[in-house]
């Protein structure tokens, strides 16, 4: 993927907010800014990882990109065409080539209908009227995700976690999307099942030239699956760049803490890794300037002044911290 290839998906300064309503005479519900000015690009055939802890807004970005949630501000261009600023119904239509695989695919299937029917319906909704074409496409897709066509007559509750994930994939793949948003595709899966599902995801990307937005909290999975990764904290991207580069030389203090905290297969690394103090704060009461400074070991007065911009520090590698130089090289993990 050469650098100057036009981006398939461009998102600029995306803002999404929840709450703000007021129950009759009840307390004023606080406005939660789940996504606070996020920009990112997706190149054709690329896999971009969105990583961060709960409440960082990674799933909200995914749902806003898909069009299920309406963005408060920011623009979004799909293959050059502006698709933002629409009500959810039109937004979904304009972004038909983006599809979404839910974190719990079992719950994303109607318990009353068989797998075959669910896949068939996806095609009918997208206007594939000819019955035989639908059947062949369904069989191909079940085969592509490693499921025997006999699964057509099975029901969601009869499937194992791994099988449900594959049906979730098959269900959107029959629509031949260009961009697939994967929301925590491996959470809750055992190691061996996770490996098979990741294998299928990898294989499908290669075979159908898909582009992935890969949302996850599992760093080792993202390191293995995505060329580029964006680290999220409280609705903002704090660091973005090539996965290899970021995992080798993390710049932003939060990225360093996150990578250090992630369990590795090397024994005995507990004693020398400092734990990040405090809990991930709620996005309702954001502090001024850099929102990570209450927990940052390198916080200084200037961190509170303004929101740190994403500064480029290497080939497509940038981080949002005003004290990058002063912090210097990352301490050996």
């Amino acid at each position: 993927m050469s650098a100057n290839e036009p981006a398939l998906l461009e998102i600029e300064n995306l803002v999404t907010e929840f709450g703000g309503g007021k129950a009759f005479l009840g307390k004023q519900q606080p406005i939660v800014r789940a996504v606070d000015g996020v920009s990112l690009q997706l190149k054709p055939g690329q896999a971009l990882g969105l990583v961060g802890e709960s409440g960082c807004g990674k799933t909200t970005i995914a749902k806003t990109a898909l069009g299920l949630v309406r963005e408060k501000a920011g623009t979004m261009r799909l293959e050059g065409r502006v698709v933002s600023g629409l009500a959810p119904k039109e937004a979904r239509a304009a972004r038909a080539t983006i599809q979404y695989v839910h974190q719990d695919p079992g719950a994303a299937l109607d318990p009353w209908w068989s797998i075959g029917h669910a896949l068939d319906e996806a095609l009918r909704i997208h206007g594939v009227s000819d019955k035989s074409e639908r059947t062949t496409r369904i069989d191909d897709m079940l085969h592509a995700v490693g499921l025997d066509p006999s699964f057509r007559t099975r029901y969601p509750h009869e499937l194992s976690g791994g099988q449900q994930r594959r049906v979730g994939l098959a269900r959107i793949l029959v629509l031949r999307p260009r961009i697939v948003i994967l929301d925590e595709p491996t959470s809750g899966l055992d190691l061996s099942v996770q490996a098979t599902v990741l294998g299928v995801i990898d294989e499908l990307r290669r075979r159908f030239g898909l582009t992935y937005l890969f949302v996850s909290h599992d760093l080792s999975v993202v390191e293995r699956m995505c060329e580029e990764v964006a680290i999220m904290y409280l609705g903002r991207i704090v660091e973005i760049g090539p996965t290899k580069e970021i995992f080798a030389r993390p710049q932003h203090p939060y990225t360093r803490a996150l990578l250090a905290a992630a369990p590795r297969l090397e024994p005995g690394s507990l004693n020398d890794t400092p734990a990040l103090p405090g809990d991930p704060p709620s996005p309702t009461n954001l502090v001024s300037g850099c929102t990570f400074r209450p927990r940052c070991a390198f916080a200084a007065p200037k961190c509170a002044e303004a929101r740190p911009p994403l500064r480029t520090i290497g080939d497509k590698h940038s981080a949002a911290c005003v004290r990058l130089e002063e912090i210097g090289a990352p301490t050996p993990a």
Partner: protein
Amino acid sequence: MLIVKKFLRDFPAVLGLLIITAVCLIAAFAPLLIPDADAVYFGNIIDRLKPPSAEYWFGTDNLGRDVFARVVMGTRGALIVALTVVALAIAIGVPAGLYAGYTNGWGSELIMRVTDVFLAVPQLILALAIAQLMGRGLESAMAALALTYWPFFCRTVYGEVRRVRNALFVEALQGLGASTSRILFVHVLPNVASPIIVRATIGMGFTILTTAVLGFLGIGAAPPSPDWGLAIAESREYLPESWWAVTFPGLAILITVLGFNLFGDGLRDLVDPRLRRSR
């Protein structure tokens, strides 16, 4: 089918079903069970207040009428009234609940406020008032019962639709671009149908009970109708000697309502979609 196997293991539910079928058969073939039809309405005074005997299985009431014949004919009346009331209540309550549950404009707010108002007054009190204002008689009693029972269906459906609407698979369907009506009728309704069926079954029993109360108070069926509630009210003065004229209609109510309650209870456990559709 797994569902049939699980149902047969639940003895009380099966008992409930047996009772209901028996009651329906009695109601349907009532004339065959009673040798002469007019024994229901005319009895000879000399046979007045006779205890149960070979000739009069349930004895006779104060007008000498055969209690057994009246109880049998009463079954038909009770079922017809209950079916009409529940059907009317469903016809009004379910669409209202479906609409209010799925949309969230002012329309849905209005429907739910109206439901709250109806539910703000104990059902029987409201039914009494409506029945009286519409003029006494069985028809106005039935209208009153239906008018005060539809909110229960509306609220049940509203809750179920709201639950299903927020379910992930509805969001996934929206993600696929499915139209609202398709989601509503192809996906939401089947998931909501089961609680309605359970509610309807329990509702049948409940309505029979309430109709009997109206009959007892003299607001529902008027003499000489063989209504169970009315029969109890009429033969109350001749206690404790002629206990049979009071006991048997009461037992009829008990067994019929018990049947519907047991069957409805059993249905509630079977509502789980996993059982309904798998091999």
